[in-house]
């Protein structure tokens, strides 16, 4: 009896599971745990988007522990693990990314965009990467071993939106099995923006263009800041209701911040609520990094396509800025701020500023780059709305 109990204990060790002796577990789990440790390393040591990569990485580790059933259901008792509970509560339902977006809205200052609305076009252009990557995903599917349908392709494209909650929301709606690689790609590339963007930006611009100084932004009144979220929401309600969950929660957060009469709510959206949801969301997303869904050619395809999406978005932003200068030479735009249109707030705007100062240390582009930067958030949400509205109809 004691022997059989020791045997039972041995058969319930993780080691036994890693050796592939239990159905559903194996060496793949060990590899994914190491991937989780790499994410932790990147987050802690390299400072890559730590809020998300620490939680996603830890979620990945916990979910891949054999017979821990932390992100699954224990077959012997029927009890669901705590990460599965969190996943069902907030990712399967789509609630968590919406709440994060509320907090993002409450932390965003649309002032620079209101002061110079034409930078919205830069935020539009930079979404090109989304659709090119979508097409790329469908093209890659001709390669044996890689297989993406329209739902998957749309989710992969949205990586190019450079906006975490949008990517997670769209993927949870269209292709939840791909959440792991898509979220990891999105956050990793957002962290890598200072490495990905500068070469593209300098390749597409002349030194003279990079030295363009822009007029100082006019001050924006409180009333304008209050009316802006309402304007955006109204436009969205009339044109593209499928984008209203995202745009609506973003603008709700922003209105709460700007209206000045509900500061305690806006504080909570930015802090307690956002932090709680970030913890839950990160762990849940990490749980989709299961060996069986992650360790395949598709993941490699996603990583490549994500990089392409970021690069094309960056290039499109810069190029459209140059086009705008051609069309309206009186109000010149430094094309370096075009790259900020991919969103990746506020990292991309800082990159614009930094690259600009390499050509002219006295040229302060940060404020100017914040306009396209936040426009990119709106642009990605609009693109997400198109995907969510059209793909189920096309596929059905």
């Amino acid at each position, binding site marked *: 009896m004691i022997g059989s109990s020791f045997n039972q204990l041995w058969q319930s060790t993780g080691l036994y599971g890693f050796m592939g002796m239990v159905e559903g577990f194996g060496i793949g789990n060990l590899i994914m745990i190491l991937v989780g440790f790499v994410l932790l390393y990147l987050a802690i040591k390299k400072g890559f988007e730590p809020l998300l990569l620490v939680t996603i990485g830890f979620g990945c580790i916990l979910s891949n522990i054999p017979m821990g059933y932390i992100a699954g259901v224990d077959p012997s008792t029927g009890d669901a693990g705590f990460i599965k509970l969190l996943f069902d509560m907030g990712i399967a339902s789509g609630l968590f990314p919406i709440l994060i977006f509320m907090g993002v809205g409450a932390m965003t200052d649309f002032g620079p*965009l209101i002061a110079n609305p034409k930078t*919205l076009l830069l935020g539009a252009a930079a979404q090109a990467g989304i659709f090119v990557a979508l097409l790329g995903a*469908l093209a890659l599917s001709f390669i044996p071993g890689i297989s993406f349908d329209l739902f998957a392709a749309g989710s992969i494209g949205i990586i190019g939106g450079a906006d975490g909650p949008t990517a997670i929301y769209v993927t949870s709606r269209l292709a939840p099995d791909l959440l792991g690689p898509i979220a990891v790609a999105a956050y990793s590339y957002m962290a890598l923006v200072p490495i990905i963007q500068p070469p593209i930006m300098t390749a597409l611009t002349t030194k003279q263009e990079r030295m363009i100084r822009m007029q100082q932004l006019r001050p924006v009144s409180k009333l*304008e800041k209050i009316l802006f979220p309402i304007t955006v929401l109204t436009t969205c309600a009339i*044109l*593209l209701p499928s984008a209203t969950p995202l745009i609506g929660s973003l603008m709700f957060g922003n209105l709460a911040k700007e209206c000045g009469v509900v500061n305690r709510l806006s504080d909570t959206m930015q802090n307690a609520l956002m932090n709680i949801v970030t913890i839950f969301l990160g762990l849940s997303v990490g749980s989709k990094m299961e060996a069986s869904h992650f360790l395949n050619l598709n993941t490699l395809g996603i990583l490549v396509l994500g990089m392409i999406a970021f690069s094309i978005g960056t290039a499109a932003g810069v190029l459209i800025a140059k086009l705008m200068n051609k069309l309206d030479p009186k109000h010149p735009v430094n094309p370096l701020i075009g790259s900020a249109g991919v969103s990746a707030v506020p990292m991309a705007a800082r990159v614009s500023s930094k690259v600009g100062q390499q050509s002219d240390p006295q040229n302060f582009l940060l404020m100017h780059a914040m306009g396209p930067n936040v426009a990119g958030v709106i642009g990605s949400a609009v693109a997400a709305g198109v995907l969510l509205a059209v793909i189920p109809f096309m596929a059905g």
Partner: protein
Amino acid sequence: MVFLAQLPKEQLVTQLQNGVILMVLGIATVFVFLTLLVFLTKGMSALVRKLAPEKPKAVVSSPAAVSTSAASASEADIAAAIVAAFAKSKE
């Protein structure tokens, strides 16, 4: 989403066609939407300055101010202020 070993070629071509349509539709919608917003925002601002020409209060604030754990940050600021105050008061 279904993971297939490989989709039949015909279906892949149809998908690609759909993808092109989606790209056209998507880029068009994004541009129409944001271009419209350019005009609406300009109109809104013009209207505000005409109807409520209040002295604008807020200069656009720094993006660095995107709050990170606001409470502790501001406490640190306060602590810094105290230290600075001391340093000065001892001069």
